[in-house]
């Protein structure tokens, strides 16, 4: 089995983002970037499946500007075998990304595509589902457990009602929840070794996909500041307000 894992470069989750004064977006210059956290879980799962003997190759792919390659390097350092970097600049919508990934899938013919359930920058939660739709493959989103069976996966999904178990035939797309596993560290010796692994370079423009955005970002603002409410004098008054005024209990 061959596994393709998609990874995205985003602003590090510890960094307090700052909205640009002109409302054109958030500041990204000289801001620490990292791999999208649930994508780390996807890489970890792929490597685990390979370590269990059920996969033969793990390929990490990213789509984005020059520096997006760092995320592929990191995937290589924790066990992916080789990498692909599809170079594309500017805002890439999930629809575009899934079309580009479809081209990579056509070329690489993986049995399984893994990725994080959602990117922590645009919070869209679309790419995995879109890719599986374009390929007409089964999808398992928000996976918190993956069992590889013969030509099939049994996947436990985190849904609002609780846990849902489904069985999907391969090839398939699975998007990973943070609860799926604990990603390992990229150790220094493995980072050194990863420098020798190959990363194939592709250009989005060569793949025949129109990458221009369909959604126009009009402005980006800070969330509205919350105002202080009232002070209540007693617990009884508090309960009364919550019941009759705010109507939340």
């Amino acid at each position, binding site marked *: 089995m061959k596994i393709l894992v998609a990874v995205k470069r985003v602003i590090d989750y*510890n*960094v*307090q983002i700052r909205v640009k004064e002109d409302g054109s977006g958030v500041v990204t210059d*000289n*801001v*620490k970037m990292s791999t999208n956290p649930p994508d780390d879980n996807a890489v970890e799962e792929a490597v685990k499946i390979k370590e269990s003997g059920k996969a033969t190759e793990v390929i990490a792919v990213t789509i984005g500007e020059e520096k997006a390659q760092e995320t592929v390097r990191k995937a290589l350092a924790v066990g992916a075998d080789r990498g692909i970097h599809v170079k594309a600049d500017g805002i890439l919508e999930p629809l575009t990304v899934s079309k580009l990934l479809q081209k990579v899938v056509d070329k690489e013919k993986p049995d399984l595509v893994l990725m994080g359930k959602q990117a922590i920058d645009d919070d869209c939660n679309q790419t995995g589902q879109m890719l599986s739709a374009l390929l007409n493959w089964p999808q398992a989103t928000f996976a918190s457990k993956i069992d590889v069976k013969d030509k099939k996966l049994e996947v436990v999904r985190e849904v609002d009602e609780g846990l849902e178990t489904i069985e999907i035939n391969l090839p398939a797309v699975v998007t990973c929840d943070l609860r799926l596993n604990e990603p390992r*560290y990229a150790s*220094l010796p493995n980072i050194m070794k990863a420098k020798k692994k190959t990363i194939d370079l592709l250009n989005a423009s060569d793949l025949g996909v129109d990458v221009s955005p369909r959604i126009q970002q009009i402005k980006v603002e800070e969330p509205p500041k919350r105002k202080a409410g009232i002070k209540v004098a007693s617990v009884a008054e508090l309960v009364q307000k919550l019941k009759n005024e705010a109507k939340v209990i």
Partner: protein
Amino acid sequence: MSRESMEYDVVIVGGGPSGLSTAIKLKQLDPNLNVCLLEKASEIGAHILSGNVFETRALDELLPNWKDLNAPVKTKVSKEKFLFLGKTKSLSWPTWLLPAVQQNHKNYIISLANLCRWLAEQAEALGVEIFPGFPASEILYNEDGSVKGVATQDMGIDKDGNKKDSFEPGMELLGKVTVFAEGCRGHLGKQLIKNFNLNKDKNPQQYGIGFKEIWEINEKNHEEGLVMHTAGWPLDNNTYGGSFMYHAENKQVFLGYVIGLDYKNPHLSPFDEFQRFKTHPAIKKIIEGGKRISYGARALIEGGIQSLPKMYMPGALLVGCDAGTLNMPKIKGSHTAMKSGMIAAETIVDHIKDNKNLSIYEEKFKNSWVYEELFRARNVKPSFSWGLILGIIFTGIDQILFKGKLPFTLKHKHADHETLKDAKDMPRIEYPKPDNVITFDKTSSVYLTGTNHTDNQPVHLKLKDPELPINYTLEKFDEPAQRYCPAGVYEVQNENGQNKFVINSQNCIHCKTCDIKEPSQNITWVTPEGGGGPKYGNM
């Protein structure tokens, strides 16, 4: 699991200006050298904090075509001001009366973090292997006692010291020469200075704590290229310190404060002095209506040549402020740090190729302009131990009339941890509450640094005696760690009538002030798990 090891010609610890300049110079002198550089921050630049008005002298020598290479050195200083602050008044000091070392018209306002990011790109293009996120936590020695290299921190250790499932052992990096470039109060540099007795016959090292905030201000208050320094209020005559305000690009000002860590009053809170300073009418009018976008703090070296340790030892060199090459009256250390690294690189190439002893580093250093600069600057800082006014008068004579060539050298008498007086004998200081517009508290400040350390790892601020803070320091000095720490790491909490010393190590912004100022030297800063600490952007 045992540690893997890897041999290099040169191993460099620390990706600041000195370490990166060492790396670049090495590869320029001999492209065949294998050079690796370790950095504890998650990326190069993320732990760098500096004013910074940059003198290009070292950069001109290292990469003469830096302009063509698009170095982030763009905003030339266009105007200078020096103010003496009273509580509400300010007095402008004519710039022609400033010593030459404090004149900046040829210099640039830069972000040192961004310069380091750019230097790292240059180094990597030359073939230097850079590994961010890997703190060197341990010095490795050969049997003959010489330095063999360093080991990186183990990863995946829980708070009790046990291995987690994710455990990954550290790695040994062995070099023919190891260069320590950790910056001020490097935790390995400190061990080397002690082990090799490098500070024998030297004055005790002197430190300061520097704060920096970046503000985006109103266009009408912004004057790109303006450099302003102040002395005086809110500090008293006996406390050494002052402010800087640099008007950079994009309507930003770099606003900061430096306070000598030889202050005597344990009630003093450097952080709150800085916050209070911003409420001075001369300062407030500039930042009012603006927005604070970054915060950080870092200890810096102030001891100068008198306190500069020997910088070589068998198998290793100290460069930059891991030794202490900052020029205090100039308030600049980047160019001297870079130059010290370049000299180290020349020394190493002579050592590896021609088998010359590493001791030639000292000779090369003494013949360089760095030494000349530091020698002339040597009497300024100690003169301020007489107070601000006498210090200024002496400095005028020393720097303007004699250009630093007076035939004597003043001494630093005490280490900074020895200077605190008993809390009961010193006046308490009431600091105003933050208004969350101009002034802020420590927690919301730390928030801007992006600081984090992964949960469940050992506390990286080690107490030699865990009982001492409550049993002794609290009583005698009102536990000053609560105040000198710029990140609110240390708290004394009263729970059910019992005092408890709390260390919020996840807030630590790696400034090292506690390691320096703790009166009993009871706190030791060690490296946390890699990638922890602040994530500074343009600092």
